[in-house]
């Protein structure tokens, strides 16, 4: 036993994102919002985006779910800020898993949920764009 060690369920990066989530909240007057749920465990994740010049200027999340769901959404929003929409469409949950330094096998679906929420938000944005005539 290491007396000085903190014993935590997840690794330090995951714990940090769970305890101190980045980008938590809702983007005001969001350009795109995606809310998705995982049938497997009942988690719900919502990502809202501010998009400017085809780039994700701001991304925020709200999550109802376990520690790794919260950490995944925190990390996902952190990763995608500044990316172009095209880049964001290619975003994969594996990036979240890697950036978090790994997730337990039963928790990988949390990162998938983050990917799905992001893509749902982009779709929402694109659907809205299709309706609104572009102001040149």
């Amino acid at each position, binding site marked *: 036993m290491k007396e000085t060690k*903190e014993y935590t369920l997840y690794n330090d990066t995951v714990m940090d994102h769970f305890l101190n989530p980045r980008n938590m909240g809702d983007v005001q007057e969001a350009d795109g919002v995606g809310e998705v749920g995982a049938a497997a465990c*009942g988690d719900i994740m919502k990502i809202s985006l501010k998009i400017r010049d085809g780039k994700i200027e701001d991304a925020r999340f709200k999550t109802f779910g*376990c520690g790794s769901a919260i950490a995944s959404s925190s990390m996902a929003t952190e990763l995608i800020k500044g990316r172009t929409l095209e880049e964001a469409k290619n975003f994969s949950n594996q990036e979240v898993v890697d950036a978090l330094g790994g997730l337990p096998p039963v928790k990988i679906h949390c990162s998938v949920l983050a990917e799905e929420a992001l893509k749902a938000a982009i779709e929402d944005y694109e659907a809205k764009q299709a309706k609104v005539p572009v102001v040149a």
Partner: protein
Amino acid sequence: MDKRSVYLDHQTTTPVLEEALQAMLPYFREVYGSPSSLHRFGLQVREGLKEARQKIAALINAESEEDLIFTSGGTESSNLAIKGFADANHRKGNHIVVSAIEHPSVMNSIEYLTKHGFEVSSVPVNAIGQINPEDVRAAITDKTILVCVHLVNHDIGTIQPVKEIGKITAEKGIALYCDALAAAGWMPIDVRDLGVQLLSFSPHRFYGPKGIGVLYRNRKARVTSHIHGGVQEGGRRAGTENVPAIIGAGVAAEVAIKEMSQRVEHVAMLQKRLYDGLWKHIKYIKLNGPVPGPLRICNTLNLSTEFIEGEGQLLLLDYQGIAVASGSSCVSKSLKVSHVLSAIQLDHALAQGNIIMSLGKDNTVEDVDYVIETFPKIVDKLRNMSPMWKEFEEGVIDSVIAPTGRGKSFTQHAADISGKPAH
């Protein structure tokens, strides 16, 4: 780290009593013989085991210490009680009656039997998790050989009317097996008064060591051994005995008898204080199982906090030094909602926000007050992060606990956005 450390998971396991550990110590390196041996290293152990057996028998008022079979734990005891009894009595019938909210060790032992020709009837429970003895009566057929009803539910703390069920099984001439794991050490148990033929419990749940379980089995109930080998435990359970653990269990039982009323009183007081405090400070929170009082075991509270999920609560509590369980700890790896919460028809959203706080003799009023102070902040933090909370405030979804009449249910909402119904 000088955070307060508050262990509130006594329904999972407890620390070993100092007295019990001290009693165990000589059996590791000095009195290390096997009780089957005929030399003094073995004989000395035999004598220690006999004393321990008597103390443990006293905890449940067994007729004789010979009616106890030592196993490796509660799970093995459930398995031996059910499969061993079924094996020994299958000529009499092939039907078993079981409550819907038994522990997986009971459920899965019975499921195993259903693959080998047995049939099972599951008796439902009411909203607070109580079995109706008349439902047990109704489920009994002329093929029934065994009824399985636990004394206290491990997840929601409901005390079951075992004595009333015992009258019915006695009337019908059927054996009654009672899993008393969540009860032993935390309420008086008298196997004769309950009218059970088989009863199991596990010392690690009342300050004894892990690695040892007990099956009480009176002369009327035959069980076939299911671990084959030597003639230990009178031929009913083979294998070199876990001597130090049995010794420690004996001390834990002895102390439990002596301190029972005082432990129960102390823990029940804390339970009430915790319940009052949490409900005062947190909105949209539900107690699962009966309110503190005669229908609930003294040491546990099972709560569902709306709009947030259980693991997050558990992790944040842990971060603040408070150790709790969520759902049924035994199934937590499977991502499934505990079958106990399903059986009391708890709304899916509430089942997800489930936390179990179980108190012990060493918890203090300060501990409880610290939890009362800490938990509301955690709930706020998580609600703040939860999309459901805002959607509730905005009237998109409604509360299950205190419906406002506005919005759809959480479950409906989850189904809508995931495209699949929540299970």
